[in-house]
């Protein structure tokens, strides 16, 4: 499907989605509560068939936290970007897409580890790279470490 067709299709599925044309991919912004449902339909419907999660990225936008999902269809070879944000920085929570794409398991653990976004229904959400007793989430913009991070 081309980007235009995808745009139409997504607007039909979720009218509240904000769609921005990126350089190559469409970026679909949806509220975190609706993301899972949209992802599920996108994966399961025959003409989109987004069965391959390329990349899952967590971002700290200073005021809110965001998660990007780069998904691709191995059958049709079209890609799309899903984006969601949560304003709650203390208890940020997004639905896990592990049940759709198993490759999300480590991606989500990594995001939880470094950005502190919790994923609901993740089977094994614990720290990925850092120690279990580490305090804070290093990729957040307000993370301070006076010993190891040298500001220039």
């Amino acid at each position, binding site marked *: 499907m081309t980007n235009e067709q995808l745009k139409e299709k997504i607007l039909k599925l979720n009218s509240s989605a904000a769609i921005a044309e990126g350089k190559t991919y469409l970026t679909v912004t949806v509220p975190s509560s609706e993301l899972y449902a949209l992802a599920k339909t996108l994966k399961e419907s025959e003409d989109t068939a987004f069965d391959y999660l390329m990349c899952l990225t967590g971002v*700290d936008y200073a005021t809110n936290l965001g998660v990007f999902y780069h998904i691709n269809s191995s059958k049709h070879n079209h890609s799309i970007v899903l984006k969601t944000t949560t304003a709650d920085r203390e208890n940020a929570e997004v639905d896990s897409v592990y049940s759709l794409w*198993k490759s999300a398991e480590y991606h989500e653990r990594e995001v939880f580890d470094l950005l502190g976004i919790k994923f609901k229904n993740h089977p094994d959400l614990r720290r990925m790279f850092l120690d279990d007793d580490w305090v804070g989430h290093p990729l957040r913009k307000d993370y301070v470490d006076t010993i190891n991070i040298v500001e220039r």
Partner: protein
Amino acid sequence: MVEEIQKTIDTEEEYTINMGPQHPSTHGVLRFVVSLKGELVKNVQPHCGYIHRGIEKMCEKITYPQIIHLTDRMDYLSAHINNAAVCLTVENALEIEMPERVKYIRTIIEELSRIASHQLWWCAFGMDLGGLTCFFYGLRDREKILDIFEESTGGRLIQSYNCPGGLMNDIHPNFQQKVKDFIKYFRKVLPEYDQLLTGNVIFQERAKKVGYISKEEAINFGLTGPSGRGSGFACDVRKRAPYHMYGKVDFKEVLYTEGDTLARYKVRIDEMWESMKIIEQLIDNIPAGDYAVKMKPIIKLPEGEYFQRVESARGEFDVFIISDGNKNPYRIKFRSPNLVNLTAINAMSKDHKIADLVAISGSLDLVIPCMDR
């Protein structure tokens, strides 16, 4: 932590062992907490982060040309490909068209690093299975590629040859001849690899039907690169989203459908042949021209999100840059193929022997610094 895990999985029959962080077959500091029942693997829990350096955090503080020396140190066995990914992202964001010469040289060196990486994988895989001699043959031939790199780029393992806007310097005048000599040599030596390991009945028995993963599962787990193509998942980014010269050269996407360790092995061996084919098509036709375009002294990406996929030696390597218009990225994410490939190891090695776990983790070709970043 170990005690905790042990308590949850140690039943009367199962027991846990730690494979790693220091273990001969994890090629670095990866730790598997393996619960075994006799010799049968029941559960594998990988623990990463022993060389987590926080490259993504570091990148937020430095400029785009400086990122190159950090991506070098992620997947150090195919460092050039990672660099090219970052450079491509920056160049596409700035909408700069690279000169043909740069594209040619980048493609050739990328394929050379792919061969070098697969060679090292081959010898390490042979060593994992106990064939120590493979290790030296692989390294011997890899040395020839490293020599070519050293002559042109100045670095052997870590070249830092790419930079946003082209290459650091032009190729050495001997480059073309040396590459041609290497290909001639390697076409003669590669069949020896097959005689020594591929055809060997012990190896075949060790690799066949070990670590099976179906195509659907492979896609679901996001297995890319040779590991995914061994299951029949046509995930070669060089074909699916061509970059550099890959859209214009003729090569085959190697696909096997068996989905076992042997298939993943064969994909890599065949990919070496395909890489040589690509290089041969390009090496004689490198067009004259600049080796770099003039860039501004301080590179600032316009505000926005930029995503670039490349095919690294181990799978799909993605760079995702979110820019706020400054000279350094607001957020940069590297999608490491190794980390995603590792996801599947538990499903693959279930109910196999502990020796098979070694073979399976070897066949996924994990590079730990890339995984941990």
